[in-house]
């Protein structure tokens, strides 16, 4: 499976020159808040490397340490242990105002007593850039985020989406080496959030600046990122491209945090030629690619995405089951299908052009699972 994963990564990689410079190198970073036994460990030995000109996302539930890591990169928090370097320069001891890193804050933190233009000019001014250059930068940045017409307004006069754009312009104006974005879309409504995703991605391409984006929203992460680090409880669970993370989650946490997933607890009966025969607790048997290190007799978790199962009329092929409940979501329909296991299998059917769903609750069906859809998680 490891072998295939690598092939997969190569095939999916948009640009073949993967060996780019490292923008940020986080090595063995530990962050504790408080002292002694009352100390809370926010980051336990986090190491990751963010490449130059990459859209890198830290994804995880709240309290997983992603914001702490971002604040460490920005210079608002000091590391308890470990090293952080920016383009090879150790920045662990450097205060926030001396790092070539800018932040787009979750609630924008625009200066309320300044106009939009003054907000955007703030960074370049503190860097002592010439007045003429600052004026040009401000104009260019406002144009970049399509806010030229609002230069003389104050933040209170702007909508959330507009404030968001100003916050972006302000953080990009000093042309930092790395832009940090702390859940910048979370305060926007759904439509705006979706529109901003494409814009952010486009902005990152246009400026060529490395983006480090923090979010708890898996859709945001999947749609924008070049690579994602999934975090949980102060640890990095997996780092990979969106496809790698979604298709080949490293463990059960990653699999369940991103997208929907079915898990079947099983035991390996035997392995022949890389293919494992597994038997679930209730006696269902599956054949799938063995995870590296898997031995006969091991307890494993089988993992299956709901959309990789096809529902068919009952027949010889596939897994027999009965539809327990249906959840109609418009675009797709989620069925809970009883297959005799402890928990029903969740299967996603697409809303097809024949008008809705051909199946209903109580129907006996056959589930056809694609050859490569079922995966083995060791952890």
């Amino acid at each position, binding site marked *: 499976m490891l072998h295939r994963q690598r092939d997969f990564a190569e095939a999916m990689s948009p640009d073949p020159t993967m060996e780019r410079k490292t923008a940020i190198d986080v090595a063995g970073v530990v962050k504790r808040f408080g002292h002694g036994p009352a100390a809370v460990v926010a980051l336990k030995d986090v190491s990751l490397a963010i490449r130059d000109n990459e859209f890198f996302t830290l994804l995880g539930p709240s309290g997983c340490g992603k914001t702490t890591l971002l604040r460490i990169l920005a210079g608002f928090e000091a590391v308890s242990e470990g090293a952080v370097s920016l383009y090879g320069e150790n920045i662990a001891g450097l205060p926030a105002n001396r790092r070539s890193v800018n932040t787009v804050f979750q609630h924008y933190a625009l200066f309320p007593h300044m106009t939009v233009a003054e907000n955007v000019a703030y960074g370049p001014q503190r860097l002592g850039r010439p007045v003429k250059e600052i004026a040009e930068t401000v104009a260019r940045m406002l144009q970049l985020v399509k806010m030229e017409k609002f230069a003389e*307004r104050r933040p209170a006069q702007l909508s959330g989406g507009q404030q968001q754009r100003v916050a972006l312009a302000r953080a990009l104006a000093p042309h930092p080496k790395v832009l940090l974005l702390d859940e910048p879309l979370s305060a926007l409504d759904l439509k705006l959030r979706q529109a901003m995703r494409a814009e952010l991605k486009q902005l990152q391409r246009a400026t060529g600046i490395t983006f480090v984006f923090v979010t708890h929203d898996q859709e945001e992460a999947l749609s924008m990122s070049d690579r994602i680090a999934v975090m949980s409880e102060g640890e990095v669970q997996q780092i990979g491209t969106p496809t790698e993370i979604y298709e080949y989650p490293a463990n059960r946490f990653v699999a369940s945090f991103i997208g929907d997933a079915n898990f079947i607890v099983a035991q390996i009966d035997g392995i022949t030629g890389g293919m494992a025969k597994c038997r679930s607790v209730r006696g269902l048997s599956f054949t799938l690619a063995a995870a590296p290190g898997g031995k006969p007799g091991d307890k494993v978790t089988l993992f299956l995405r709901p959309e990789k199962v096809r529902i068919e009329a009952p027949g010889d092929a596939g897994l027999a089951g009965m539809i327990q409940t249906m959840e109609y979501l418009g675009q797709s329909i989620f069925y809970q299908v009883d297959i005799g296991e402890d928990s029903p299998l969740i299967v996603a059917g697409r809303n097809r052009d024949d008008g809705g769903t051909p199946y209903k609750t109580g129907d006996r069906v056959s589930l056809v699972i694609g050859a490569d859809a079922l995966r083995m998680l060791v952890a």
Partner: protein
Amino acid sequence: MIASARTPALRRLLGLLPALVVIGLFMLVPVAIMALYSFLEANPFGGVVWRFSPEAYVQFLFERDLADNLVFQSGYLIIILRSLGLAVLATILCLIVGFPIAYFIARQPARLRNIWIYLITIPFWTNQLVRTFAWIIILGRNGTIELPFRWLGLLGADDTLGLMYSDFAIVIGLIYAFIPIMVLPIYASLEKLDFRLVEASADLYSSTFETFRRVIIPLAKPGIVAGSILVFIPCLGAFIQPDLLGGGKKLMLGSLVQFQFATARNWPFGAAVAMILLTFVVLCLLWYAQAARRAGAQSGALAHA
């Protein structure tokens, strides 16, 4: 139609009536009496003679010599200038001392802030006279500050540090008396300040000083202005501090008013001094109101745009 249009206005007026009566009775009427008295003739035995005379105001700048000619004399003008000077000085020092206190309190965890505010206001609940007397014990001859110097033999030929009965002592007394009313409004505006802005400023390459100058001070400005005015006005009219700590030698406007009514029995002159004091206060408030209106107009423009 008309009745229905009038009723809310009438009701509003009725609702405001108690406040209007209180303000009218206890503020406008006394001020009017004072203004009236300042234009009457003094009765040497106290009170006034009911005859119009601008004498009280003339007395400010001029003295009548034996031949009844007006001769310029600067005594009272100096008192006005000293009052203004000491009040400005005390206000500035209050600001310098009070701002860090307010900032410190605003940065405390929410549950500790109220305790700090409580501690700040405690002295305010004690009689001002008693608190001012305490400073005599601290600053006076053989006082808390002077004693160690005496024991160490550091005192000069005049055998005293000469802290008491000076402008210095007056200003110390004024700062001590009015620091809470400087701290509270500044705290109120700093407490509202979003400290993420401080982080944003640091993120945008500001040193601590630049952040202070360009983010914290501008956003705390309403509190700074309000606190300064609230301190400046009572400082200008203070009479306990100049009396007790200044030894009555260094008069301020407040002590002059008190002296004219209580000792010199020149009510019209006392009233005239009070009117002059009031003029300064009103000028101050007008300036403040205008500043507030400017700020309001700005935010109003924001709201409409």
